[in-house]
């Protein structure tokens, strides 16, 4: 069966102006228990690549510049 992509609004938001992934920081990607954050090859900033979030907070709590915000996933908000 062919695959289609599926739209979803993701709960983790990264403020590109504050994110220092382009300077080599990978803290949020490193700590995520579900491994859903990645560094964008286009912007060199962190973003949520997979909507598989436990809204648990390490990414936000450990970000050295306060760039990451965890929201409650829409389905259970």
């Amino acid at each position, binding site marked *: *069966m*062919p*695959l289609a992509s599926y739209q979803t609004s993701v709960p983790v938001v990264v403020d590109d102006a504050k994110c220092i992934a382009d300077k080599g920081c990978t803290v949020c990607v*490193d*700590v*995520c*228990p*579900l*491994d859903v954050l*990645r*560094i964008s*090859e286009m912007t060199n900033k962190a973003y949520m*690549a*997979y909507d*598989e*979030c*436990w*809204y*648990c*907070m*390490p990414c936000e*709590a*450990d970000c050295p510049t306060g760039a990451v915000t*965890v*929201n*409650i*996933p829409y*389905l*259970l*908000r």
Partner: protein
Amino acid sequence: MALDEIVDGLSEVSCDVLVIGGGTAGPMAALKAKLKNPKANVVLLEKANVKRSGAISMGMDGLNNAVIPGYATPEQYTKEITIANDGIVDQKAVYKYAQNCYKIIEELDSFGIRFLKNENGDYAVKKVHHIGTYVLPMPNGETVKKALYRQLRRARILISNRYMATRLLKSSDGRIAGAISVNTRTAEMLVIKAKAVILCMGAAGRLGLPTSGYMFGTYENAANSGDGYSMAYHAGAALANLECYQINPLIKDYNGPACAYVAGPFGAFTANNQGSRFIECDYWSGQMMLEFYNELLSGKGPVFLQLKHLHPDTISEIESTLHKVERPTRGLFQQGRGVDYRSESIEMHISEIGFCSGHSASGVFVDDNARTTVPGLYAAGDMASVPHNYMLGAFTNGSVAGIDAMEFADSHDFAEFDAADVALERDRVMAPTKREDGIPPNQVEYKTRRLVNDYLQPPKVTRKYELGMRRLAEAREDMQERMIARNAHELLRALEVQSIMDCADMAVHASLYREESRWGLYHWRTDFPEKDNENWFCHTLLSKRDGKMTSEKRAVEPYVVPIADDEKDLYDKQRIRASA
């Protein structure tokens, strides 16, 4: 090369003791093994990152089962846990935990984790259980993982993050020989030879589907997909009492604890829609969950945790804990809904089903030395069968496992495994990456877990279970023949689905085997509605024999702490009787 791109590779390393799972029990097991023999190599393998993995990713509000001299005795605690489990307990392991846990508390204290003390400098223990007093708050509970990590670094434990273990290796004479794992970001495989292996892989928490429909909105850390249960099963280890499901009372939709263990000692209580209490005790037991379930369906639901009668300062104190540790987004969730604990009660619901000995009794069978039925294989924490053992049980039994496993490793050489087993496993693991077309893991997982909810959620009906078994077999065929993974991350999810499917099959098998009702809601079989002590006062052990799932009875070991006849039913008396 981009992250998640699939690399076809296989390498091999070896160590003396391999600990799989770096959440709670695992770090303690690794630490104790290394301290036992500092010259030995100890590897701690983790699917995520040890810094923030497992159930205590964001810390914990307190100890739920602290046996502290002056407040409780090991005998009292052993008795309480025996009664809460309807008598099906090998007391030796529980008693040993109860004797050792105070030492572990002092050790955690030396790591920099603080415990609440009163003005006299004594531990300020709170009562939540039905009979005894065991709950000890942790004022800096958000620092637990950091404190553990410091100890691991100091002891020079070799940490391998982002490796998912998939199968255990054994020698032809049945001894443990190591494990096979996969890098979750490259799909490269790593074989780890080991003299002893300790499984600390957490609960099977991604078994049922949360009612929100969001697959990762589980009660347990959603990384806990039951991989340890599945690996132990395929290695031929016995699993105990899997029909004693984990089902918990949680904040509706948010699906985290409200949390009565924190708020109860301050005077909060569980209430129905009339604001009345209906259960005697908020401690999580199957008997309590049955009354909770009955109330939800009785017309007196929804069920709430009520705090609004408390002084605003008290509520602020409770909030400062609830919104800081364990599940800190609770505050954000309530804020989003405009719920203020000062004026509104917290709407509660029951969780999806899972396996977890941390809260119930469904785990890989272990004795009082944390040994499984496979020589050289150990288990500790939520996935090991010591019942109701919570975080402190994970630390205490992890410690037991670490010491015993190192003794085993010191007196054994590496066991030889068959290279063909590695080749077979490589084919199984990589199969979803070899297909051009197929069903993505998220769809197979959603369907499997939806079937778990539809057919396996208690009350357990034999006819439903039989249908569930058929539907799950169809989903398994899709999983084995058609599931596709296009990158390493999807492969991680595809492997997790296989653990989930194994756990679903085990849940069906174990539940159909025990032909009685026991543990309140956890094993309520409508076709066998009564507790049958004559035939079923026993453990059930599930294992793989000649490739087939089998179950057998195992006698309950003679009690160390006797239970009087008039004490046996104390947990059955959860419902508050109407006053005359």
